[in-house]
């Protein structure tokens, strides 16, 4: 296993220490239980947004904590959802009296742990609403858990809901917005290589040198199918096709296109992917009004990419453009 780590069991906490040191201007970090909150939390009267999930997806979610996005992120062990007490402590730390939204990716573990945390927080009188993101068109009923997996739309929902909360919307409004983003977004991913979980030390699956996996999740779950390597314009067709068909996206739609790298993918390749996405969208009469390009939701060292399209409306677009200032996403002011 080739990784820049010490003991495999210490990766998460050491990375969290590094995160705390590197971004002390933006966040406060608790190591035990592990959570990250924005430096100025809690914000009185603002709906707080908490997310979290297994580690190994960096910069998600810690890199999205800050002005205009998340109030807190709870990192679990590698590929393992956080525990209820992490989430509960983070919830207490960011609760500003206007309620707390949990943005939860649809995996059994994530859903159950956030549910337990919500019950505990509710018992303390903190109003919590959970919205589950499930945008992966690669699965109808996932191999991995009931229903579609939550992938790229999570990043978009966190940004858009973060802006809505900053603008003073109520918990019910922000939660409803989150459900709308989830309803209007579709994603699909592919892998050129598997990933190596530090405590396991070898690839989660074997992928021959001439094969790739289409419809992969973000934890090394099996994809929809394994196919021979192909030029990227064919790869993008394999991903965009199911995405467009599922919503469906139609001629005249304006979209936000999110091209995401999985951790081992160089940026130059993501630009090539983006160029193909733009070409295919144009062919369909779909205009890309906004884009996000980079490795924002990764799967350890996996090489590959995912594509997310969000059908934009004026509200989504305005909230997307609103200022954000986090470790991983920054614009406006």
């Amino acid at each position, binding site marked *: 296993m080739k990784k820049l780590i010490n003991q495999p*069991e210490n990766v998460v906490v050491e990375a969290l220490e590094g995160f705390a040191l590197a971004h002390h201007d933006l966040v406060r970090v608790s190591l035990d*239980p592990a959570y990250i909150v924005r430096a100025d939390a809690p914000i009185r009267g603002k709906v707080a947004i908490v997310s979290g999930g*297994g580690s190994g997806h960096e910069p998600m979610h810690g890199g999205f904590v800050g002005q205009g996005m998340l109030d807190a992120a709870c990192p*679990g*062990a*590698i*590929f*393992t*959802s*956080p*525990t*209820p*007490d992490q989430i509960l402590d983070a919830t207490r730390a960011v609760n500003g009296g206007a309620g707390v939204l949990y943005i939860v990716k649809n*995996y*059994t*573990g994530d859903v*159950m*742990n956030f*549910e*337990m945390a919500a019950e505990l927080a509710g018992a303390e009188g903190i109003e919590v609403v959970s919205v589950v993101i499930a945008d992966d068109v690669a699965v109808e*009923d996932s*191999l*991995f*858990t*009931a229903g579609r997996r939550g992938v790229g739309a999570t990043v978009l929902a966190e940004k858009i809901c973060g802006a809505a909360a900053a603008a003073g919307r109520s918990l019910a409004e922000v939660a409803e917005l989150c459900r709308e983003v989830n309803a209007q977004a579709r994603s699909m991913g592919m892998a050129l290589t598997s990933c190596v*979980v530090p*405590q*396991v030390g070898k690839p*989660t*699956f074997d992928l021959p040198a001439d094969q790739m996996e289409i419809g992969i*999740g973000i*934890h*090394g*779950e*099996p994809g929809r199918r394994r196919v021979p390597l192909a030029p990227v314009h064919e790869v993008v067709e394999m991903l965009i096709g199911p995405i467009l068909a599922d919503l469906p996206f139609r001629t005249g739609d304006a979209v936000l296109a999110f091209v995401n790298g999985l951790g081992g993918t160089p940026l130059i390749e993501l630009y090539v992917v983006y160029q193909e996405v733009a070409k295919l969208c144009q062919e369909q009469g779909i205009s890309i009004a906004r884009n996000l390009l980079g490795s924002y939701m990764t799967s350890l060292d996996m090489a590959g990419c995912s594509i997310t399209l969000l059908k934009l409306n004026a509200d989504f677009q305005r909230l997307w453009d609103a200022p954000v200032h986090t470790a991983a996403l920054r614009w406006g002011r």
Partner: protein
Amino acid sequence: MMTRDEILNWLTEFATLVAENRERLSELDAAIGDADHGANMYRGMQAVLAKLPILAAADIGTILKTAGTTLVSTVGGASGPLYGTLFLQFGGTTVGKMTLDLADWTAAWQAGVEGVTRRGKAEPGDKTMIDALVPAVEALRTALANGTSFNAALDAAAAAAEQGALATIPLSARKGRASYLGERSVGHQDPGATS
């Protein structure tokens, strides 16, 4: 009859089994994707072990509840809430007890399985640990009704659990939820450790 010391031993034994099978559990989990189940359960049971010394004088309910909260707060993933709930429910039905008879034990498992079902929203036939747990509880209830001895009841429960787990094999490929392998390995050990 089961004493608090036997309960403590049972937890220790389960922790040892998890530690010994850590890599195998993760390998089985890798088949469905994320290869973390071994590390998760190991982390949780080590945390439970670390709590045992301060539980030396506690009643069975406190021991089992502490095991449950410890699992919930250290495991994460799907198994944290599920195993945690199981033990929390065990603890809830055994508050203040220093020994358990077969009726106590049956009630504890019944509550545990109900808790897991509520939390995981899995039904029998969904190819989860429920498929091993439900027959085990049935077996305990039958044994109780028939006045079977404690040890014979545990053996019957273990056998039923094993059968239940095996019965999910054909569902595996077909329904494709594929939690199967992870399930089966854990399902085996759990009642196995019980008896």
